[in-house]
Each structure stands twice: as C-alpha cells, then as structure tokens.
C-alpha cells in the first residue's frame, strides 16, 4: 500500500505554507499524518503536493487568551493529554484525550489534524462542539473564525476550503468553582472509533443544582451534536435519575442516528441515552466537593 507520488515541501512559516496552498494544484497540508497517511496508502487521497506544517512552532501552543484557552493546530495530541492548563481550564478536553486512538498515534497526531479530518466519531471534535469552541483558520492572509458547530458540515467534511490552514481553536473557560466532566464512548475495542459517544461538562451552584451544562453526542449523527435543549431542561434542577432519563429521552427523540456495519440506528439512539446518562452522572459526581452517589 504505497501512496501515489507527490512533491513534498516543509515551509518554515505559516505565511510560506499559506502561500504554497494558494498556488492550488492539489496540495494538502500534513502535520501528524495519522489520518492522512493511511488514506494516502490506500490511495483514497492522492494529493500532488504535501505541505508539511508539522514542525511550525508558531502553531504549537496552549495558552490563555482572555477568557478562553487557545490551542494551536499543530499541538501534538500527547501534549494536550498532560498539559496543566488544559487540565485545569478545559477539563472536558483533558478527560477525552486518552480515548483518542493509541499512545503512538497521539505521539504524532495533532489537535488541528483531528479537527480538519472531521471523523464523526472523533473525540476532539465532540469536545469542541460540546463546549462551543471557536475554530480559526487562515485562507490566504485572511483569518476566519467559526463556531465548532458550523465548522463540521458532514462526515469527514468541514468548511475549510482547500486553500485554508486551520490555525487554532479557542475553548471558553468556565469560571464556576464547581466543575465536573464526564466522557463515555462505546466501541468494539478500546481505542477503536466509537460507535457512540457522549460528553458532559457541568457547573454546580452552592446548593448542588445545575448552574450550567454543556452536553454533546458523537458518532451518532454525521457531525457531533451539542444538545442545548437538554442543557436548558436540566438547568437549575437537581440531578435526579428519573428526571434525567426523561430529559435525555426527550432530547434524543428527534435525532436521526447513523446506521452502519457496526450498529443500527436504534442501537445508537439507545447507546446515546445510556452514555449521556453516564457522562452527566460522572460530571455531576466529580463536581461535588465530596463525591456522593447519584440519587
């Protein structure tokens, strides 16, 4: 499984990379290559030119920017797994990272690469959509920011034009003191692409009611889905099993799950409900100052 031939360039700056992209002629960016190289090996992707941005230091960062954490596109996934800023300020992302492939994949794979690849089951994409991240890309000399929800348009498809380079994403930082997160997925083997996944970040008030809730499901629909209505339904309420399950069922009633070799649409709908319940429960329990059993 050898790729079709291509030319290779490693520009020294983002400016140079964008200039190369602007020349057109079937060029693609490569950073970690963990998703692109298998596609090329199977000849499902056949770029004539590869522009390697993997070593661009200017795109590898994790930093606080106002009330967001900005993560550069070429930041390696393994860095995100252990970064203290991510852990404290974007705990849902830290929680999801160990689910991304295997360690050797995370050693090379990049944050931006996962976003641009837009697999419906991708964990990073799910977290981005759930938390309402903003994704920034550069096209020519223009910088364009879109919400994560707008960024993903279908399986393996995003708004990124062929001439664009994803530069960073910004995750809003929640200021509440009591934050908890939950992330669950179901797959055939650990580290496989999930057939259903759920992410939850919860902030609790002093009295243990839900002040704020961000919920999302992945691998169930063509793009990750944020469940705003569900979040609204549960806001200001105490977490209680029957209410939670009923709210989840209502929120999922109108989704149209994927059906494929791995799982039927019905399975995905039920799995979505189960995984959401577990993710929300985990988030709620870890947000308590002293963890109590879910009522």
């Amino acid at each position, binding site marked *: *499984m*050898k*790729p*079709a*031939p*291509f*030319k*290779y360039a*490693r520009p020294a700056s983002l400016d140079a990379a964008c200039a190369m992209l602007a020349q057109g002629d079937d060029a693609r960016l*490569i950073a970690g*290559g*963990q998703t692109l*190289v*298998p596609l*090329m*090996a*199977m000849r499902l992707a056949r770029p004539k030119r*590869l522009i*390697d941005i*993997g070593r661009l230091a200017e795109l590898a960062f994790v930093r606080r920017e106002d009330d967001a954490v900005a993560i550069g596109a070429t930041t390696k996934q*393994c860095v995100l797994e252990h970064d203290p800023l991510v852990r404290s300020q974007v705990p849902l992302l830290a929680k999801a990272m160990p689910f991304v492939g*295997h*360690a*050797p*994949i995370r*050693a*090379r794979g990049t944050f931006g690469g996962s976003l641009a690849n837009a697999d419906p089951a991708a964990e990073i994409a799910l977290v981005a959509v759930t938390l309402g991240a903003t994704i920034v890309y550069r096209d020519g000399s223009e910088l364009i920011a879109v919400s994560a929800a707008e960024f993903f348009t279908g399986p393996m498809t995003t708004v990124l034009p062929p001439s664009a380079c994803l530069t960073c994403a910004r995750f809003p930082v929640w200021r509440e003191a009591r934050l908890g997160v939950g992330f669950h997925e179901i797959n055939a083997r*650990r*580290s496989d692409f999930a057939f259903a996944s759920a992410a939850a970040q919860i902030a609790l008030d002093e009295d243990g009611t839900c002040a704020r809730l961000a919920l999302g499901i992945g691998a169930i629909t063509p793009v990750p889905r944020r469940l705003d209505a569900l979040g609204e339904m549960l806001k200001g309420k105490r977490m209680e099993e029957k209410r939670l399950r009923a709210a989840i069922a209502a929120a999922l009633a109108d989704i149209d799950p994927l059906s494929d070799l791995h799982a039927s649409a019905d399975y995905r709908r039920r799995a979505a409900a189960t995984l959401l319940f577990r993710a929300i429960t985990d988030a709620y329990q870890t947000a308590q100052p002293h963890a109590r059993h879910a009522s």
Partner: protein
Amino acid sequence: MRLELSVNGSIHVVEVEPRMSLLDCLRERLLLTGAHAGCEHGVCGACTVLLDGVPVRSCLMFAVQADGCAITTIEGIAPGPGELSLIQDAFCETHAMQCGYCTPAMILTAHALLAGNPAPTRAEIVEAISANICRCTGYAQIIEAVALAADRMRGLNQPAART
C-alpha cells in the same frame, strides 16, 4: 530528496522519494529489517520505532518527515554483539513471543515505558502494549516480561545485602 537520519546513534544520508515511508526507508535503504510491515495503515504496530525516545508507527511517517530526528530501532537495543538488554533477556525468560514478528515493536514499546515509568502496574503495561497487535501469544507472557524487566531494573544498583 536528500535526508539525514540519525538512527541508533549514527547519521545516515539517504536519497528518497517523498512517498517512501520511514518504515520502508529503514528496511530497504538502511537494511534495518527489524521493523516490520503488518498493515501499512497504522493499526497493528509491527512497524514501531522510537522517535526521540517515543514509540511511533513508522508506516505512518514519510521518511522525509523524520529528517533530523533521532530514531531508535531494535537493532540499536542490544548492548553488544551476542548480548541482550535486560528487557530483551526478560522477553526470553518468559517466552514473550512465538513467531517474533511483533517482538521488536513490543520491546521498543517496553523500553519507552520503563524509561518513564520504572514501576508500571499491570494495567499500565497493558495500556502501553495495547497499541501493538500480537496474534501468537495472547499477550500474557509479554506482560510478564515487561513486569519482570521492571523488577530487575529496580533491583540494579541495590547493595547486595539489601535483598
């Protein structure tokens, strides 16, 4: 394209097509055949090498991407001709292989794990090797080899009277 690869401590200059994978470059240009092709799409891990000390899938890298990086292959592990590293010896002690095809990858992964974690739990060993498929052993003897190696490494430099 002309590349400089640092492999097992030596610099090699090679001329490659951009599409040549790091795996193929190591095997065919440098004749280091210890890294193996199992799938060429990044799942089986038989192609694992260490890149700056970290296990990576060499089938998922083009050689040109590794220009200037320090690569360790299985051929760089034994301390000398006819000798075995402590980890290699542990693999022999527990018979942590049968056909030997995944073995270089497993050993390199074990080296990287124990370099950073001298006392891994069984779960940590499993997690570390879960990126490498073995079809022969069912993994138990491999897990035992890594645990044995960890034990022995911790035992080094202990005064004899301690035990």
